[in-house]
């Protein structure tokens, strides 16, 4: 059986069930890299130039950790998920960057996802499937199953109020506490315990119920993004502005914490939009910035102070 490596980083938390269904249907075996560790992070940081972001460095670390464990590594280039909505250049060039910084990595399985070029999207998916079968109908079936799994995954998290770590990794989060906080940001920051210094458990340890973007329906997030920013410009804007805006507007939580990677261009704009909105609506809000230099002590102080403030303000 052909072994396909999946780095447990970046878009993994967003699309893993989709990828699993696709490769399963084509008879491939998936090898997912282990959770991020110090070694994984260090090996990625050592390879990539400083100008990229921490999540990309973590991704490269995961690719390195898969060397020798699989025949291929799946690295999609997600260019655009809807018309006139763009993705960060690091996602566009991810396969090329991977090859450039890790020349010794196994051959990459690539796919270009660009909803603005539907016709090319089909041929790109067929080209990916051709590594496993010459039968286009089989690829088509795999793609259908993949989309279906993705829909079920997303719907389940909204319906059951679950996080990706709960669904994908069998964790279970605390459901009772004396206050509640919405944690918004990209899943690769929220659910990688190494990157965020166990942020969710840290909050739960202080008696806080944590709500995340995945628990908000697509329609609600879209609407909030529209109200705050006049619609998305960036792919994955909904999980920041949409979810943050929704939680602030609804007032179902006592405060909102957003998480961004240091040096992230798109996020730096989104965080400002959220900050202004929270201020206007008079809701407690703070933004945490993470990178490989983030010290646990500084993060702990900010989180503790924010929770104190939220409780006093209520």
């Amino acid at each position, binding site marked *: 059986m052909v072994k396909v490596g999946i780095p447990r980083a970046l878009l993994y938390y967003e699309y893993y069930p989709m990828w699993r269904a696709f490769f399963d249907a084509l008879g491939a075996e998936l090898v997912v890299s*282990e959770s991020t*560790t110090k*070694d994984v992070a260090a090996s990625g940081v050592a390879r990539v130039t400083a100008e990229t972001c921490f999540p990309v460095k973590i991704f490269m670390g995961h690719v390195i950790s898969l060397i020798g464990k699989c025949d291929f590594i799946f690295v999609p280039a997600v260019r655009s998920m809807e018309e006139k909505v763009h993705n960060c250049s690091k996602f566009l060039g991810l396969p090329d960057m991977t090859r450039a910084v890790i020349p010794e990595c196994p051959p990459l399985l690539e796919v270009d996802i660009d909803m603005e070029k539907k016709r090319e999207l089909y041929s790109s998916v067929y080209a990916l499937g051709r590594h496993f079968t010459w039968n286009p109908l089989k690829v088509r079936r795999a793609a259908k199953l993949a989309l279906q799994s993705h829909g079920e995954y997303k719907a389940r998290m909204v319906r059951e109020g679950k996080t990706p770590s709960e669904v994908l990794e069998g964790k279970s989060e605390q459901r009772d506490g004396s206050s509640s906080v919405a944690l918004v940001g990209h899943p690769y920051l929220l659910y990688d315990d190494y990157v965020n*210094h166990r942020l969710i458990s840290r909050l739960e340890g202080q008696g806080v119920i944590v709500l995340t973007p995945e628990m908000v329906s697509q329609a609600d997030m879209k609407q909030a993004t529209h109200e705050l920013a006049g619609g998305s410009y960036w792919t994955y804007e909904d999980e920041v502005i949409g979810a943050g805006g929704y939680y602030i507007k609804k007032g179902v939580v006592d405060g909102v914490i957003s998480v961004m990677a240091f040096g992230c261009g798109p996020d730096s704009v989104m965080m400002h939009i959220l900050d202004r909105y929270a201020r206007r609506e008079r809701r407690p809000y703070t933004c945490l910035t993470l990178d490989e230099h983030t010290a646990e002590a500084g993060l702990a*102080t900010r989180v503790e102070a924010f929770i*104190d403030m939220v409780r006093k303000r209520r």
Partner: protein
Amino acid sequence: MKVYLGIDVGSVTTKVVALSSDGQVLSSVYLRTEGKPVQMVQQSLSEIRQRLQGVPIAGVGTTGSARYLAGVMVGADVVKNEITAQAIASLHYVPDVKTIIEIGGQDSKIIILRDGIAVDFGMNTVCAAGTGSFLDHQADRLNMRIEDFGEIALESNNPVRIAGRCTVFAESDMVHKQQLGYPLEDIVYGLCQALVRNYLNNVGLGKELLSPIVFQGGVAFNKGIVRAFEEGLGIKTIIPPHHEVMGAIGTAFLAEEETSQNGNVTKFRGFEVTEAKYATSSFECKGCPNQCEIAQISLDGKVLARWGGRCDRWERVD
């Protein structure tokens, strides 16, 4: 009268206050931490002990970046983050305070309060430019004592603009300005303005700085910075009497609150801690590929607490 202790162990200085239940600072100690938090806590506590002459302690609180370490050492009733502690102390001296500017050794904070409640706060993000350490280093390079820095800055009439975004760039800019022949006082005040600019544009970004503004933390000793803030904001700042130990005062107030809810029983180990033999050590955990560096503090061979793990494997101490 009951007496409460507040201990604030920061990155650069260690502060201890003895606070009476009516909010009077009976005694305070301000020392450089010099990377030896355990010894400095012991040293400052023994000074306080001498000055108090046998007055019993009704409660202890700790804060600052070494708050957990200090808390375990002395047996604290409350361990609180710096932001909350600073805000509580400030509210005691200036009950209608709306903005707190706090600049310490390695971090700077802004706390926005409305009607006596903190509604927003900010801290410097990823770098220490715009903090006390920045001035400390520049003073070192100019071969002057940090204590004289403020007085010299006040003599300036034509401050020089210095790029203060980063300590490294500030140095090259400063050397350049020195070589062009600018007078020392103008360079020194230029540095003060650079710090304030940095603070207002980063930490204070997007925040509404309303009067009354309280300026506290060790850097408030520096008259040059005070002048630069007042010129930059166009508002007078209030510098409370014990501005450098506000965090310690705040946590002493919190200790009072905590013990009064717990039937007036304190967990304080007593002043004997000043003579106790604490040992700190560290080791690398081999439990998983993370190889966390675990630090531990022990007393007479018995481990009191451990830190530094990414999981809770070492957190339980029996």
